[in-house]
């Protein structure tokens, strides 16, 4: 589904002699990442107190199994968690790279410029002060993230929005939210504070069915949109003037891309909490795997999904006690990124 976008950008940027080789590498990377994500997706449904073979999982998923207890374990118990991991990872990986490219800053993932903090404030307030249920907390987090994104955009608007001012205003909003969270947590009853802390760490196991369904619908709609708009991203990276010359309506392109990324990260955070570092490291990892300087949106989304799924396997099954996913995501992605930084000599701008 992404082939037209990839071909389009590659054709625009790369001279024909080297083009075929690069395109082949980009396709191979996407294929390998897809295989890894699928393998991890199946793996998360195999492990647990009752172990299943990969064949049993796949059979059950395809409706070929005749063992109702296996069907129950796979479809009712493990599939929702695995799907959440997949969806949250895709959403975070995609929105992370869109932010990093759009703001031309490898550190500017949504969890460092205030979006996740907006979600967190709303969630913590609704847990500690209003004692809301899980669905309402998710709704509050969604509203908080969208509101934070809108607020940052409006406050950064001064006859246009530059990436630099967006980041600085984002830092301000983020610090404001962090202070509020700290205050509310310190004043809260211990029980509420622990519940809020658990939410803040983030775990794909906590996602409810409704949140998951909304996130999936959004992904089905927005993932192709984002991949198509990736073309604009390449032009915007060349600078506003150059992008304008290439026929991109700069401000419109930026608003639409930002909106897509913010909605995705807001829904992912509403479903699983602010799972840390996935949005930050997926993009840089993808840039260094692809290496051609070609499109990285789809690879980044896949890296995000792989990170979350792997982190969940590690957190739930390899630790002495089951941990929330958010504890482990950093530990899973960081060493790999460090290794890539040390070995791959590529200086991708904004990634």
């Amino acid at each position, binding site marked *: 589904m992404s082939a037209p976008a990839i071909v389009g950008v590659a054709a625009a940027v790369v001279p024909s002699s080297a083009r075929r080789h690069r395109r082949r590498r980009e396709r191979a990377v996407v294929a390998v990442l897809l295989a890894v994500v699928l393998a991890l997706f199946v793996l998360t449904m195999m492990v647990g107190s009752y172990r299943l073979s990969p064949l049993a999982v796949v059979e059950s998923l395809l409706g070929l199994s005749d063992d109702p207890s296996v069907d129950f374990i796979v479809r009712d118990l493990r599939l929702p968690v695995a799907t959440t991991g997949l969806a949250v990872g895709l959403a975070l990986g995609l929105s992370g790279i869109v932010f990093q490219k759009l703001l031309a800053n490898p550190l500017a993932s949504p969890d460092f410029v205030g979006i996740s903090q907006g979600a967190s404030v709303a969630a913590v307030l609704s847990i500690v002060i209003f004692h809301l249920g899980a669905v309402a907390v998710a709704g509050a987090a969604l509203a908080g993230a969208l509101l934070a994104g809108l607020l940052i955009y409006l406050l950064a608007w001064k006859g246009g929005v530059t990436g*630099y001012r967006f980041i600085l205003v984002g830092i301000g909003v983020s610090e404001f939210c962090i202070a509020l969270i700290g205050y509310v947590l310190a004043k809260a009853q211990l029980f509420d504070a622990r519940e809020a802390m658990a939410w803040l760490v983030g775990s794909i196991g906590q996602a409810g069915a409704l949140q998951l369904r909304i996130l999936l619908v959004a992904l089905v709609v927005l993932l192709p949109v984002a991949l198509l708009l990736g073309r604009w991203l390449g032009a915007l990276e060349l600078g506003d003037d150059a992008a304008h010359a290439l026929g991109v309506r700069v401000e419109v392109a930026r608003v639409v891309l930002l909106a897509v990324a913010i909605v995705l990260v807001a829904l992912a955070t509403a479903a699983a909490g602010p799972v840390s570092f996935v949005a930050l490291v997926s993009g840089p990892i993808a840039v260094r795997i692809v290496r051609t300087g070609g499109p990285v949106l789809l690879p980044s989304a896949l890296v995000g999904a792989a990170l979350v799924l792997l982190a969940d396997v590690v957190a739930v099954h390899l630790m002495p006690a089951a941990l929330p996913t958010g504890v482990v995501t950093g530990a899973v992605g960081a060493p790999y990124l460090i290794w890539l930084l040390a070995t791959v000599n590529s200086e991708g701008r904004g990634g």
Partner: protein
Amino acid sequence: MTTTTASLRQAAPTPSHRNGAALGIGLVVLVGVLAVVCVMSITLGTRGIGLGAIIDAFRDRDDSVDATVIRDLRVPRTLIGLVAGAALGLSGALLQGLTRNPLADPGILGINTGASAFIVTSIALFGLQQMTTYIWFAFLGAATAMVIVYGVASFGREGATPVKLALAGAAVSAGFYAITTGVVVTNVDALNQMRFWQVGALAGRYWPELERSAPFMVVGILVALTLGRSLNGLALGNDMAVALGQNVARTRAIVVVSVALLAGAATAACGPIVFVGLVVPHAARALCGPDYRWILPYSLVLSPIVLLTADVIGRLVLKPGELQVGVVLGVLGAPAFIALVRKRSLAQL
């Protein structure tokens, strides 16, 4: 060198902030403000104290309550705010210059998380209970983080470039964060101790913390203040700095070492106070333009002003209780910062 293409393009409406004399006067005024803030920090609080009592407390060495409060509580607290504030602000300015990234601060580059990880691990392994012993572990953690970040970023042909430094910092930070959270989730003792350290406060920081951390910070401050010209070179980009005859690798190494000293000791002394290291350098840059020979002294003076003012406000709003300085900084400081960002034509990093 004092203008960038970015600010030229925006046709900066305020020529005054490139004017050396005006900046000098501004700095003198800020030093005066800092002095006033220091006096306020010693006199204001749950227990109001007259100005004369300060002098009496040190001249007569009497044992009145006022004198004790001043000598043992207020003065060390103010001094820590002064030195640690300056250290945090300077380290943020150095890191932003080094990585040329507005998001770079001791938090995202792994220094705070390194310190946290070492503290909780030491508590879990050795059962440490005293705040004063934390300092060494916090310091060790911060230094370790900085060494790893710089080491990882230095691999490869082009050395420790800004992008690689920033990403290595983020990755190391992520790794240490996982260690900290993992230990805290499994060890109740560590969680309990960690809660207090992680708040980031000047309350409860007295002479022992000051004596242990101040020497590092003072050395770091002195080194940092000499780096203005080198950072101006780095700001032009690697190639240009080399062409101007600068030893880029050496400059980066010196910056990294002084950041480790400054942020390591400051974080060890008063916990992770992110706002000062991240926001105040931006405020300094918004006030005085892109020249690091001005940004560094402005950060040096502005940071303790902001930190101590927030601390005093925190003491006064909830009498007889206290509002943590981090909360005050975020709630009052962040909107002020956003207003500043909107008002000024910004000198980009």
